[in-house]
């Protein structure tokens, strides 16, 4: 046992006895948890077992998985990222604002800049990257605690969304092209956004497992000093990760704004906590050095099943706050227990 408070006990040890890696072990056990949870939900909640319901579960939570990719990578390096929800809201609102026709309507919220759709989206993504750059500058360059910096940019970016929308939403005088991307149905009820999310997850999983960049991410999280001494440019690496995370959040924001054809300042409020919950459920270690994007996706499914089951059981929505916190607590303790038993 480490003596420091909050150490990730035993998580960083590498098994060398020909067993599967700790990571696959955690992913596999989370998969078993999914099956158990779905089994219980199917028994207690009427009509839960229907395939359409299971598909809806995943597709309704696509944005959490998409936001979780960047957060997982950063958490693996030992840094927090709480600004994703704010960045997504900001990007959505800004893209709407840039795209709205430049009129002189008495309603201030109906007047935008009248830019073409492509330019509007590009500029909004640029703004998202700007927030990522602020995060990166303070965390990687100035070595400020990432929790403080991303908490600040969280309110900063959502604050921009609130200013642009006057605390409400912008949804008038938008060109028809704006609502297209978010409302393309590829197969049945599956939207394009879901496939973009799956595409991102696959790319991220490949980067994570098969590239030098991915392996260096783990090295930084496991031992930053060692990584630095062995020639990894830690600051540059973390900068890239924050930029990627903000970019993904921006894409999510634009897709969501397009789906609802409106830029709302309170869009996915509080999603930061959910994203952190699913990364932790997926086995990513709090102190870094351990975790996977696939695990995050599995964690999201667990959260989706539980959220849906609690609604199906006619519990008040407030119960989800309590359920989430209890689940995260159990997940952290169970993973620690399993790994410490495994690596005795």
């Amino acid at each position: 046992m480490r003596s420091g408070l909050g150490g990730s006990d035993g998580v960083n040890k590498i098994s060398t006895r020909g067993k599967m890696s700790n990571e696959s072990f955690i992913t596999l056990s989370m998969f078993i948890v999914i099956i158990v949870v779905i089994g219980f939900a199917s028994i207690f909640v009427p009509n839960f077992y229907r395939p359409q319901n299971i598909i809806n579960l995943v597709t309704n939570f696509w944005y959490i998985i998409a936001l979780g990719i960047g957060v997982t990578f950063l958490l693996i390096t030992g840094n927090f990222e709480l600004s994703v929800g704010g960045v997504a809201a900001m990007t959505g609102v800004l893209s709407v604002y840039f795209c709205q026709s430049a009129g002189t309507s008495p309603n201030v919220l109906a007047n935008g800049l009248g830019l073409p759709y492509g330019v509007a989206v590009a500029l909004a993504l640029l703004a998202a990257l700007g927030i990522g750059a602020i995060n990166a500058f303070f965390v990687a360059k100035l070595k400020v605690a990432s929790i403080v910096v991303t908490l600040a940019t969280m309110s900063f970016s959502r604050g921009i969304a609130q200013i642009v929308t006057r605390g409400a939403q912008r949804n008038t005088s938008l060109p028809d092209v704006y609502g297209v991307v978010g409302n393309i149905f590829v197969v049945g009820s599956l939207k394009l956004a879901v496939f973009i999310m799956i595409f991102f997850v696959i790319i991220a999983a490949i980067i994570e497992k098969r590239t030098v960049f991915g392996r260096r991410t783990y090295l930084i999280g496991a031992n930053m000093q060692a990584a630095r001494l062995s020639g990894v440019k830690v600051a540059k690496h973390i900068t890239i990760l924050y930029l990627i995370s903000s970019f993904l959040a921006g894409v999510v924001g634009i897709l969501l704004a397009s789906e609802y054809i409106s830029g709302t300042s309170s869009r996915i409020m509080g999603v930061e906590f959910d994203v952190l919950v699913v990364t932790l459920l997926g086995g990513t270690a709090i102190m870094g050095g351990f975790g996977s994007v696939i695990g995050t996706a599995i964690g999201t499914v667990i959260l989706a099943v539980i959220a849906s089951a609690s609604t199906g059981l006619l519990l008040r929505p407030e119960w989800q706050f309590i359920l989430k916190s209890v689940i995260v607590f159990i997940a952290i303790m169970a993973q620690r227990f399993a790994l410490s038993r495994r690596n005795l």
Partner: protein
Amino acid sequence: MKVQKDTLGQLNVPSTRSWKSILKGSYMFILLIITVVILSVVKLGEVEMFARGHFLNWDASIVNLFRMAVPIFTLVGGFTLIIISGHIDLSVGSALSLSAVIYSLMVLNGFNFATSLITTLILGVGLGFINGFLIARLRITPVIATLITMSLYKGIARLIVPAGVSAIKGSETRTMPAWINNYGREGVLAGLPAAFFVAIAVIIVMIIVQKGTVLGRHTIAIGGNMQAAELSGINVVRTVWILYVIVGICAALAGVARASYMSLGDPLMGDAMVLDCLIATLLGGTYIWGGEGSVIKAVVGALIIMCINIGLMTVIPPYWQLFIKGAVLVLAVALINYLAKEKSL
């Protein structure tokens, strides 16, 4: 970064950097004066609230500011101690909300002031105890542990409020007793309520704890280097646990003051508190990685953030609030980082 690392430089501050060290000790006072001057001079908009343009008027504006500042004054001392110890408590806002909900529920159900207050304080001890258990005993990272309890406390607070109602408050059938305002709103001395003087007392106790007790010295030692503190015989688990219980009590007290001021218990009323406390503590020059900081300066930081809050209500549209707070936090972090001496991770 081109910072010359001089081992003697930390003991013997060279004259070229002395302006910086003077600024480091006093910038929060300068910021406070600047904020007050700006808010006293600026007169924008037409909506009349809180005696606009009379920011320095005692009866109209400053009393109101102090009354609104009671919760953050009550909390910021304990919060600063937690930050000095190198930990963080993100659950203070939810603990405040839950305490306010419980307190107003008890008052609504006919309990007297003393019973309600003591029950809420015991609840605060319990909430802090849970945080301390997760962090000190189970060794879960403070950020995650307090995020868990943040969600937990908020969920409980929301569940206590009946479905379809936004807060615990008086209705036609059941009125909130009028005396609920006595503690947090009615003036006792110079127009200030009793809760304000309780908050001042809490701050004084926290200053004494920080400067004059073993607990305070242990807190600084733990924040400076936890391994070293543990090896030199400090009971880290117990110290951290006590600190979280202290913050829990402060949050409960702040919740009582808030519920008494608003005469209702809203499960969302504490949501902005974490950000405010963090900004106040950082503006007060507390080092975010722990090891150094000052309760008094954090109180000055709290005064700045309250001036900004009141200013945002009176002279600037409310939807600017989140942006300005985020910007202030970013700037505070940059300023403190610039003024702080170089520290390796």
